[in-house]
């Protein structure tokens, strides 16, 4: 019963918020925050319960829609609810002066509800229904700002519809051959299916979920969608919505097809998992280095979203308990870091009047310190600096890759990290460090409602960085539900037999070393504070306002890497659309407008029928 209340609260909540929006803005904002908070609490309360309810039946297809809760769905549900709540909180101030704000809040809550529906559904039909509702909800929200966002929204929805239709094809073929769509019963039924059929199913589902999770060849919609969507929504989009694809991968690969069956697919090196790992590896390397070349901050983060998605796919592709745990943990970690970074960009946009171009910003650390700290935490989370949450998940992925003897995949992951460091530092440097331009002299810090989400997420990064045991306990529960032998971890690191990782020791040592160095630093001679214009310019006069190096930050690297990173896949899709458009033009010419030709068509049809009959004796 509890699951239905969650869904009902979130869907009706969206409706109520829209209605209150008609009366007064204040009431709408408060009710939106309350609804999302209620959802978080409800999901939180339903922690380790096993619930299974049928909530609706379609007699004519003798199908019934049902919901269930286990560790996997609870894990994703809490991420969805949490990030949703924080983005609503963040957008209170951010969306104030946009038009159609009621529509925005309704759509945000509606998409959140859709995602909760996906995560809680227990059979493929309700899964597909909520999936589609989420997709077209996202489409409306992406193109919410108008202008270039319209093209981005269209690109997104076309690819998402194509993906979900592939998924529908697989779901209905499952239903046609097994008569039921329940995950539990399907899991047992599929054991006896022929490998070819399972491979076909997996292929279709990989296409469906790959489009959402933006694996390499299906990623082209993501940069435009993230860059053009409203910042709070792109936080939700990159953090959580894209990870529905990951939930789908986990669902189909482990809770339905199951580990043992996966290994039987394919022979030797050419099995399904290995190919998936390589796709994950490519998804790490190419997008991360394309992020290097971007000048628009949101587009840079979007490319990182794709890159980090590669880590998750790599993690679960390896199919060892450590790998799966690493992949799932990285989903949580990136959800936190990605959302935080988009909040930071949103804050910058809010204060500097919508400027996203990295070459125009600079020196904002002096005016917006809290945002800077959040940004620093975010990028260190993204890189995986020790004592941040991504470090633990990346460590697990590397450990399992090396132990399973896949050194080249490990290399791709490492190089991905270094690519992230370079591009993410460029992001931080061009926005916060360097000279503060004239026009941002009086920029104030973002209001409190925007700071709280940022601070909370930064704390989460550090907390999970130091005490990874909290999420890992849930993840070991998930692995038990998958039938994989669960990963036993201590609260702050890895036990002896898995590997040497003790985060508390690292923390302690870092603190001690930090204090010692700080003592040395403060004991030595004092230094006087100078402002940014009092700077070394090799004897020349410091040119005001132009003394900033941010354009073409890694110039030499561009020249070497640049040519290889041209997005070939995107060109292929545009070529495809162009070709189909011209073929549609030819097809249109059938209707020539001349009566005689139309009469000719009718008689041709008749003679075809008769001729086929006489000739063939149908």
């Amino acid at each position, binding site marked *: 019963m509890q699951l239905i209340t969650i869904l009902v609260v979130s869907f009706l909540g969206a409706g109520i918020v829209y209605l209150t929006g008609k009366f007064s803005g204040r009431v709408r904002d408060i009710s939106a925050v309350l609804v999302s908070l209620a959802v978080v609490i409800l999901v939180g309360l339903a922690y380790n319960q096993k619930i299974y309810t049928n909530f609706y039946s379609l007699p004519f297809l003798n199908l019934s829609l049902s919901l269930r809760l286990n560790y996997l769905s609870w894990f994703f549900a809490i991420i969805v609810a949490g990030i949703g709540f924080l983005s609503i909180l963040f957008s209170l101030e951010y969306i104030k002066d946009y038009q159609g704000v009621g529509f925005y809040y309704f759509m945000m809550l509606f998409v959140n509800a859709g995602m909760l529906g996906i995560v809680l559904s227990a059979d493929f039909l309700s899964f597909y229904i909520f999936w589609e509702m989420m997709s077209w909800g996202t489409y409306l929200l992406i193109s919410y700002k108008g202008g270039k966002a319209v093209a981005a929204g269209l690109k997104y929805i076309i690819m998402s519809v194509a993906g979900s239709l592939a998924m529908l094809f697989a779901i209905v073929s499952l239903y046609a051959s097994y008569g039921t769509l329940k995950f539990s019963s399907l899991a047992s039924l599929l054991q006896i299916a022929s490998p070819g059929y399972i491979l076909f199913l997996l292929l279709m589902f990989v296409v469906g979920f790959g489009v959402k999770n933006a694996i390499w060849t299906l990623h082209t919609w993501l940069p435009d969608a993230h860059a053009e969507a409203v910042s709070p929504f792109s936080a939700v989009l990159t953090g959580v919505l894209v990870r529905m694809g990951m939930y789908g991968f986990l669902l189909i690969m482990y809770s339905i097809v199951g580990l043992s069956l996966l290994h039987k697919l394919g022979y030797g090196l050419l099995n399904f998992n290995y190919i998936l790992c390589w796709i994950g590896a490519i998804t790490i390397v190419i997008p991360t280095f394309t992020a290097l070349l971007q000048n628009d901050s949101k587009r840079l983060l979007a490319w990182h979203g794709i890159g980090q998605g590669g880590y998750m796919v790599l993690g679960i592709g390896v199919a060892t308990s450590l790998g799966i745990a690493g992949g799932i943990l990285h989903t949580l970690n990136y959800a936190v870091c990605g959302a935080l970074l988009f909040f930071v960009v949103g804050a910058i946009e809010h204060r500097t009047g919508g400027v996203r171009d990295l070459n125009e910003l600079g020196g904002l*650390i002096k005016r917006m310190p809290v945002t800077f700290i959040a940004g*620093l935490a975010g990028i*260190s989370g993204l*890189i*995986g*600096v*020790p004592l941040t949450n991504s*470090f633990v998940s*990346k*460590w697990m992925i*590397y450990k399992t890759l*090396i*132990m399973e*003897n896949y*050194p080249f995949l490990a*290399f791709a992951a*490492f*190089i991905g990290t*270094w690519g992230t*460091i370079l591009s993410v*530092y*460029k992001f*931080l*440097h061009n926005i916060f*460090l*360097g*000279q503060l331009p004239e026009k941002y002299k009086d920029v104030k810090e973002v209001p409190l409602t925007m700071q709280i989400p940022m601070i909370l997420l930064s704390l989460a990064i550090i907390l999970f960085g130091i005490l990874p045991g909290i999420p890992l306990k849930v993840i070991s529960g998930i692995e038990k539900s998958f039938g994989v032998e669960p990963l036993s971890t201590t609260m702050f690191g890895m036990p002896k037999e898995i*590997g*040497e*990782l*003790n985060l508390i*020791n*690292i923390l302690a*040592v*870092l603190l001690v*070393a*930090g204090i*010692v*160095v*700080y003592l*040395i*630093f403060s004991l*030595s*001679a004092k*230094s*006087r*504070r*100078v402002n*940014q214009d*009092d*700077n*070394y310019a090799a004897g020349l006069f410091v040119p005001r306002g132009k*003394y*900033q190096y941010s354009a073409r*930050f*890694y110039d*030499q*690297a561009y*020249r*070497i890497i640049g040519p290889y990173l041209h997005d070939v896949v995107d060109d292929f899709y545009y070529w495809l659309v162009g070709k189909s458009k011209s073929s549609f033009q030819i097809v249109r010419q059938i209707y020539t407008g001349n009566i005689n030709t139309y009469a000719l068509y009718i008689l041709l049809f008749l003679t075809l029928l008769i001729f086929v009959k006489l000739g063939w004796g149908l």
Partner: protein
Amino acid sequence: MIIKVISIIVLPLIALIIGFFFLGLSRKVIARIHRRYGPPISQPLIDVIKLINQESISHGKLFDMGVILSLAGSVILVLFIPFGGIAPLATSGDLLVIIYLMLLAPLGVALSGGEAANPNVSIGISRKMMLALGYEVPFLFSLLAVMTWYKTTSLVEVVKAQQSFLWAIFYLPLPAVAYFMILPAMLGIRPFDIVSAPQEIASGTAVEYGGRYLALTTIQHAFHIFIDIALFVNLFLGGGNLLTFFVKMLVVFLLGLFINAVFPRLRIDQAIKYCWKWPAILALVGLIIARII
């Protein structure tokens, strides 16, 4: 337990001493090559003491924190690398942790340099990053080669495995050579010192550093030299007890110094191309061999 605490305190000091010794030695040796006497070996120590008492300017909170972070990062990194017999924190962090901890130092410097709001510094940082990108490829290949060869990620086990019979350098010659070829890039000495060379853009990242900041950066540089060479020795030369460990480090350092002192300075894209051509190929071949056998 007490031995652990003592070794945690002692090890950084040893590293500091060795680091300064190497610094002094390198200036002495280069001078000798240029047929001049060069400053006394303890010159770096004298510089640091002088700098600490000197007045300096600061560009804000992050400017200070960045330098502190980078030094702290180097200090704890030392603790994870076994020096001879002593390996205090080896059980709580393996080779992967070491790779990631090596990020802290450049990150700290980059942050404080960025705060200095000086384009020269920014150019220096971007060069340092690109150079790092350059030498990371062969470095990672060689590390992976070692790890796949010994089927473990913990440095202590690698060292123990090398005690029983031959050093890793005989089993994995190519990664070792590759590592050795990029050692100067990692240390930032002679052919790859474009980042911090005085003649270049006002000595790169250290433009705005004076007094105590310069002192801390030189200390950090000393630690960094110790770390890289100690890592090389542990990985490929199976570092034995204290004395033999120091001797091996000295040999590796001098060998590297002699070879590289004569080369002209490489431009950044030349450096990257160099790192990605020969050392990367050698390390890759080494990795493939390690993978297949």
